[in-house]
């Protein structure tokens, strides 16, 4: 096969796969060259052969759930880390700047917030119960 035919066959491949349109020059060569004609017709045959390997596997649902659970786990770890980091920063800031009241404020909320929120929880429960 000469270099010219090699170039034409590349163009024929482009046309076969819809990357280029057939033009007069290529058509002209195709009509008079047996090698390129055989190549052109062979492309369909090759694609037909490749269909033997055409399949689409079934969906593995548990695998998808596993992936999503893994992502969720990573997110919750990151969130916990963020929380710990902020807490450490606050603590350090309070100690270093001598603003002890920040420490007391933090401790006060930690200790009292659960109790302060009790009436609120009770209130919402009442409201839910009354709605049935």
């Amino acid at each position: 096969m000469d270099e010219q035919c090699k170039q034409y066959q590349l163009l024929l491949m482009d046309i076969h796969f819809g990357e280029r349109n057939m033009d007069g020059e290529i058509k002209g060569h195709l009509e008079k060259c047996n090698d390129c004609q055989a190549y052109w017709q062979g492309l369909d045959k090759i694609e037909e052969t490749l269909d033997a390997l055409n399949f689409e596997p079934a969906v593995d649902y548990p695998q998808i759930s596993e992936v999503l659970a893994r992502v969720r786990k990573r997110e919750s770890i990151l969130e916990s880390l963020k929380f710990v980091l902020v807490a450490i920063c606050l603590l350090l800031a309070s100690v270093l700047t001598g603003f002890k009241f920040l420490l007391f404020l933090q401790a006060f909320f930690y200790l009292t917030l659960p109790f302060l929120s009790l009436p609120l929880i009770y209130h919402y429960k009442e409201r839910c119960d009354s709605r049935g």
Partner: protein
Amino acid sequence: MDLISRARAGEREALEELLRQNYGILKGYLLKIGCDYDLTEDLIQETMYRAVKNIKRYKATSKFSTWLITIATNLYRDQLRKGRKEILYADITDDLQYRAEQLDITLEAKEKFLQLQNIMAGLPFEKRAVLVLKHYYGYSYQEMADILQCPVGTIRSRLHYSLDYLKNKLREGGQQLG
């Protein structure tokens, strides 16, 4: 809101649906490029994980399946780079038999399937990938160049080489596959 936007917002149902819709394409691609069964399972897991983890980075300019295929290709390439030897189909008849059974295909189709895989195994990974992306998934040269991170000209010559290789193999084998 469309599925992609919902998935990007972190909605679990949307992510699940997106993965479900593209699962077959991803797994089919890995098996067709010649990835062995165990590694395929690992790579699917890792590809989906990275896709979900980085969902905000996904630009909807290409299909979601294209994004998955790009991630999977890079992961597979990393495996080869790390020195993982590609399992040659010719030496793993048992595995192929198993694979064909897993894929639930008929006996006759199985025969052709195994023959074709043997032929495909003779191609280097990069050339096999081009053939698979073009024939089974209809990607354009430009899309394949983006997935495989190489120039369009390289894609074109790899495809030409692969087609020639297949043609010669079919001729040698008396076109049993046709």
